[in-house]
């Protein structure tokens, strides 16, 4: 990966929530890079820090959260510490964000077209014709008839709302679009359609995507690389197919086994026993050890780093020295029944 290919480098990012009792570290020392046009999926359960990480990268943290350490280098510039004026030059033009629920991100009393116009006028002085043309163009990009520019958010279906959010994010064809669970409020058919749409747009216009979700199976066919987060830390980072075929971290293995499938035999599943830890009181040593079926004494004492194993990065002591008992090997790909 050459230097010019890399558009985002996050290094040592930590985010704290300042609370009355004590500070809680929601994101702990996260580092990763993103190349031009790459699709990175970030997965984890609720409370693992993935949304906070996203907010931090987009410089959208608000009190009581604040960025405690680390840098976010976007196209050569460190976003941390930039003023609002400097950030707004980058926002939406080079980097845009798609939020979880369109009903909350869109202004309910303004038409879609009016909101597009606001965004366009915030970054330049386009004429009325230019605004109309660009708005119609992005709507067509996501497969919505431009006549809906006159609609209000509540008049559109859930799927169309989410797609208009993506259209809005594409107004300036940015280099990076950050998405926070944009499909969670959608049904399965709309979800599939949206994912395919996002992937097509990405391949046509070449922007990079960071996609946060709690549903691993959703992005299994779409992301290039996958980052698994747990209790504020990165537990596994690697190529998507490699992780699905051979998950290396016990947490990732547990996650993959918690998905009932419609193909193949019906088997009872266990999920991962217990609950994610309270970030105010993380376990000593490896944060996953209370729920890990392979935890040993040293896992309760030594906090593992991210170790390179077989092309992935894994935060597991036993994986690093190859002492995990059940090597999952290659998972059998199930064909349609």
């Amino acid at each position, binding site marked *: 990966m050459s230097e010019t290919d890399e558009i985002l480098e996050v290094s040592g990012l930590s985010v704290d*929530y300042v609370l009355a009792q004590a500070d809680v570290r929601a994101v702990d020392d996260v580092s990763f890079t993103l190349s031009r046009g790459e699709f990175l999926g970030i997965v984890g359960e*609720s409370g693992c820090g993935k949304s906070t990480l996203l907010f931090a990268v987009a410089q959208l943290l*608000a*009190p009581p959260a604040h960025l405690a350490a680390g*840098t976010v280098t976007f196209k050569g510039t460190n976003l941390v*510490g930039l003023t609002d004026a400097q950030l707004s030059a980058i926002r939406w033009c080079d980097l845009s964000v798609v939020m*979880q629920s369109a009903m909350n991100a869109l202004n309910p009393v303004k038409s879609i077209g009016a909101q597009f116009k606001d965004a366009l006028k915030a970054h330049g002085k386009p004429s009325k014709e230019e605004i109309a043309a660009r708005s119609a163009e992005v709507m067509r990009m996501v497969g919505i008839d431009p006549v809906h520019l006159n609609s209000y958010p509540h008049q559109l279906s859930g799927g169309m709302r989410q797609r208009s959010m993506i259209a809005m994010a594409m107004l300036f064809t940015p280099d990076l679009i950050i998405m926070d669970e944009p499909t969670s*409020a959608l049904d399965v058919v709309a979800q599939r359609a949206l994912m395919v749409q996002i992937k097509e747009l990405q391949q046509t216009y070449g922007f990079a995507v960071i996609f946060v979700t709690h549903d691993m199976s959703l992005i299994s066919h779409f992301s290039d690389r996958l980052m698994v987060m747990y209790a504020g830390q990165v537990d596994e980072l690697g190529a998507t197919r490699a992780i699905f075929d051979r998950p290396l971290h016990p947490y990732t293995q547990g996650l993959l086994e918690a998905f009932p499938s419609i193909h193949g035999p019906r088997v009872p599943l266990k999920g991962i026993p217990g609950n994610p830890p309270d970030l105010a009181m993380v376990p000593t040593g490896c944060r996953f050890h209370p729920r890990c079926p392979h935890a040993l004494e040293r896992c309760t004492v030594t906090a593992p780093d991210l170790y390179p194993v077989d092309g992935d990065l894994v935060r597991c002591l036993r994986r690093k020295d190859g002492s995990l008992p059940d090597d999952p090997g290659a998972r059998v790909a199930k064909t349609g029944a």
Partner: protein
Amino acid sequence: MAMPVSGVPAEAPAAQLPAGHALARVGHAIRSNRKATAGTVLLVIFILVALFPGVIAHHSPTADAYPPHLGPSAAHPLGTNAYGQDLFAQVVWGTRNVLIIAFVVGLATTGIAVLIGVAAAYLGGGWDGALGVLTDVLLVIPLFPLLIVIAAYAHGEGTIVLIMAITLTSWSYTARQLRSQALTLRNRDFLVAARVRGERNLYVIVMEVIPTMTSLIVASFLTNALYAVLLSSSLQFIGLGDPNTVSWGTTLYWAENNAALQTGEPLWAIAPGACIALLGAAFALLNYAFDELGNPALRPVRRNKRVRNG
């Protein structure tokens, strides 16, 4: 399909009030927030003054037995007015009247508003319409002229009329607010769950809806108390209260009558005015503090950590 949403990401730890007795939680909340502490301290001081005025001020507030036009001294901390009355005693004894008005109006206004507003929202339909008409009529009537008319007719009847007049004209605004909030709660799952498990309407309104609106109800009480202080003092100032009651507003009335500021007795006007301001500030501080307690995003972040660039 609804998703849990707020401006803060899902990982934001919830407001960790220690579980336990409600009073203990309130106590902890007050101590942990500077605005709450300041407001509470001020309010407590005023309450103590109102409860034990004789202990603090040794002179009678109404007896014009002292030499007039005295400046501040050890015997008369705020001096005396043109009638030879001790100003300090007047201000101290006046606290009781003001606080009674503030609390009674606050409670009555909020009580009526809760009943009417929440019932209208929960029962909906015809009830909502009828109660809404009642609320709106009172909402639209200009407040101050109405108060003047009422108080002028009952001139001399004093504090009770003042309280009733202010309550009558104040409850409608709060009722509208509470109705709006109750409307947002009406279709929340836990209320549907309560009905589905067989609870009666009255039970749901009193035991399930109102407890979830406590912060808005408390805020309404504080706001209404604050406005009662200001309104009653204003009415007394223009002479519509009973000029013989000992109260900050009536003291101001007499100060104005005697052109106190121009004749070199500024304390006569400044002292009661400052008290009104301080009591108002106490209620306002408590109001801000309750807001912050309810919504962690509003709390000030102690910027004692500088961002370290790696």
